[in-house]
């Protein structure tokens, strides 16, 4: 079986699956059970300053959206950082780390944006034997109203400043956790990089209101008739997180900056995708909160099987897809494909027909006896039919061989690639040619 041992910025763990800083890692009891279940590491629930801890609401903290069969797709929360005293958390961290020396234990920290505050907490954390720290610049609710969390994460100068303090006052590896609630994820990542961060982790949760109670006329979760935006996570945020990870991974300024991928990781496949886009490991929260700690066993067996089948190692996987993340203008316009319906697999539901006929290019023909076929002379290869088809691999996109004639345009398919930058309709290109 493939070796899943992970070394992330010098922090070793038996596998690249860590639990993200959140309720699953809020106390010793949970973390021990997580380690017993097989998790490679945990980022402890975010610690705050010494003194009276923060308080949480006493009404509901979560909102959710569901897919078919009430499968949880997205979770929204208004929980704050740990509401347990700092000393208790530190004591428990030390005890867990002592008993599980082979697992990664990272302390997530969020204290006010002053040098003294950071200087004060770091030695206490170091004392626990933790393998590193993660700076929580991401929490989008509550803490941000107090000038912490995403309030820091949205100002690159603050990120850089705090990161510098941390690098100055501890030798522990430092991961900066980024908020997605910005327009260009590269800016805060660059600031962390400039401040000397050993890695960035992303994403934290996304500002969201999941639903509105139509009797109370208030956002959900509703507390005494009112609601506040929360942070969104779970499978629904994965596409956003993947893009942000890729943006950092392919940015020349941050080449080689290690990334811990977070956001919607639910199965081994999600994890492999994050890693292929440049994440050195992944962190998981919602999937564990939905299904319990045991899912890590599927992640371990699935990733190992995948690596074995591909005959690659874990480090080979990391970043393997990054060179193929490109800009639209560089996509080959001479690559032409057509949808093809496998009649043996087709269950004749007609969803492809409805989608194409009503909303796309009228390229699917329906016979009286419900046989669906693609009209190659109309198909623009948009892929919508593939995505609405309930049967996997029933509709596939088949590339047209160079030299053949595209019945839609009547033109010969060219072998040589050509993209928008050289297309005659591109005004920039026309100017350049003049």
């Amino acid at each position, binding site marked *: 079986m493939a070796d899943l041992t992970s070394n992330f910025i010098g922090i070793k763990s038996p596998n690249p699956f860590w639990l993200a800083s959140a309720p699953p890692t809020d106390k010793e009891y949970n973390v021990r059970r997580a380690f017993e279940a097989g998790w490679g590491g945990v980022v402890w629930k975010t610690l705050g300053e010494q003194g009276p801890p923060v308080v949480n609401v006493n009404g509901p903290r979560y909102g959710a959206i569901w897919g078919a*069969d009430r499968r949880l797709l997205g979770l929204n929360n208004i929980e704050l950082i740990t509401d347990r005293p700092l000393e208790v958390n530190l004591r428990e961290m030390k005890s867990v780390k002592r008993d599980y020396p082979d697992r990664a234990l990272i302390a997530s920290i969020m204290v006010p944006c002053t040098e003294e505050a950071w200087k004060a907490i770091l030695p206490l954390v170091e004392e626990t034997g933790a393998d590193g720290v993660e700076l929580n610049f991401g929490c989008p609710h509550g803490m941000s109203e107090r000038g912490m969390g995403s309030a820091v994460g949205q100002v690159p100068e603050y990120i850089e400043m705090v990161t510098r303090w941390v690098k100055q006052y501890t030798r522990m590896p430092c991961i900066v956790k980024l908020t997605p609630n910005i327009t260009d994820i590269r800016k805060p990542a660059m600031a962390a990089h400039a401040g000397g961060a050993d890695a960035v982790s992303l994403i934290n949760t996304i500002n969201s209101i999941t639903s509105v109670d139509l009797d109370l006329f208030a956002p959900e979760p509703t507390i005494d008739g009112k609601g506040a935006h929360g942070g969104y996570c779970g499978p629904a945020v994965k596409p956003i997180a993947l893009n942000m990870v890729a943006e950092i991974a392919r940015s020349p300024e941050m080449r080689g900056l290690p990334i811990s991928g977070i956001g919607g990781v639910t199965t*081994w*496949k999600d994890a492999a995708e994050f890693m292929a886009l440049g994440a050195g490991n992944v962190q998981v929260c919602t999937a564990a909160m939905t299904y319990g700690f*045991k899912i890590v066993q*599927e992640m371990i*067996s*699935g990733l190992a099987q*995948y690596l074995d089948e591909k005959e690659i190692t874990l480090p080979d996987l990391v970043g393997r897809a990054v060179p193929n993340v490109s800009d639209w203008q560089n996509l080959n316009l001479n690559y032409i494909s057509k949808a093809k319906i496998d009649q043996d697999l087709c269950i004749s539901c007609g969803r492809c027909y409805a989608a194409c006929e009503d909303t796309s290019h009228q390229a699917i023909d329906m016979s009286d006896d419900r046989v669906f076929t693609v009209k190659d002379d109309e198909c623009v290869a948009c892929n919508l039919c593939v995505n609405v088809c309930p049967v*996997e691999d029933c509709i596939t996109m088949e590339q047209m061989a160079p030299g053949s004639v595209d019945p839609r345009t009547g033109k010969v398919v060219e072998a040589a690639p050509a993209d928008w930058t050289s297309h005659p309709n591109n005004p920039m290109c026309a100017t350049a040619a003049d």
Partner: protein
Amino acid sequence: MDPKALVSGIMPGRMDTAAIEAAFGDLHPPLDDHEALVAADRCYFCHDAPCQTACPTEIDIPLFIRQIATGTPEAAARTILSQNILGGMCARVCPTETLCEEVCVREVAEGKPVEIGRLQRYATDTVMAQNVHPFERDAATGKRIAVVGAGPAGLACAHRLAMMGHDVVLMDARPKPGGLNEYGIAAYKSTEDFAAREVAWLMQIGGIELRNGVALGRDVTLEALKAEYDAVFLGLGLGGVNALGVDGDDREGVADAVSFIADLRQASDLATLPVGRDVVVIGGGMTAVDAAVQSKLLGALNVTIVYRRSQARMAASVYEQELAQSKGVRIICSASPVSVHGNGAVREIEFEFTDDALARTGERFRLPADQVFRAIGQTLTGEGLPALEGRKIAVDGTGRTSLEGVWAGGDCASGGDDLTVTAVAEGRDAAEDIHMSLMG
């Protein structure tokens, strides 16, 4: 109707080969990839899942279904096989309606369980089709263990022992290994010679020497085995059959259901297998149902199961009763046989109605019969065995018998249901205990 169907007497070829083959097709056909994904998606990944508890081998069912759902049926198979090396056969023969699927939370809530058995088959078929054996042997221990009986209990025990590095000699009186998997399970549950293929696949672990045609009590004694080997496991099954004990029991045409099924399972062409026109099966368990259904599928015109208590008390599950009825088998309950009539060969069989306490009512009736099958239970046979409890070898929770160094499991041992999956669990657990006691 084919005129051959109407001819009385026991004769082969009541239907042509093609019709018989179609009738004996897979009872639970395999899921294709798409069906498997849809079926897997229904699993809620329950915590401390009731299905897992209900499975005698305690397969981590939610985990293997999740592994199927995430596109890794090979990993799913490993999850299954690490608990139950005959997971492929169990997927086909387990009465899931009274085990895992009965307690599936979706069965309880909607009357429609996750199709655990078929998903299990999907996963195990995947690795067997690749002819991959997912386990390797530990370093050799130098210990030698005799396993007597190559049925599910013996096979599971032998495999686990071999995996832990022991050398195993697996002996069986019959010419082929597999026990009732090979000779007893209904043909439509184990199609395409699955039992033999599964044994061959299982043996790939190495370290198991199979000796067929060796009978304990005839070719070798327990004393000798104890002396020669470091431990002995007995997985003898139940070789004897209960007698009817009524007048005319010995008439021509009266036979044991298990022998009929064994012949059926070994027939290379089912159209050559003789079957009566009016078949009566006496009994109320799985064997009765299997004999009746298979008679019907061979072309018998009238097939009747007669059971002595009420239908609710039949050992065959409701699902199996309905299966029989859907194939056209009639089930008569609360009637006990009194005598078998006929001149040499059986012509009629007479019953008397009984209540649930088996008290006779005095009401009698006769059924025309040219073939009668006894399916009223099997018994342990053999001399010089360890101490019995009731009519089975007494064992503790880990399969230890009254004799030092001798373990037993499966149908021949006390406790547990007489099911393939139970035999596997007991064989496996005995292997673990043998290992513990030999290795300290």
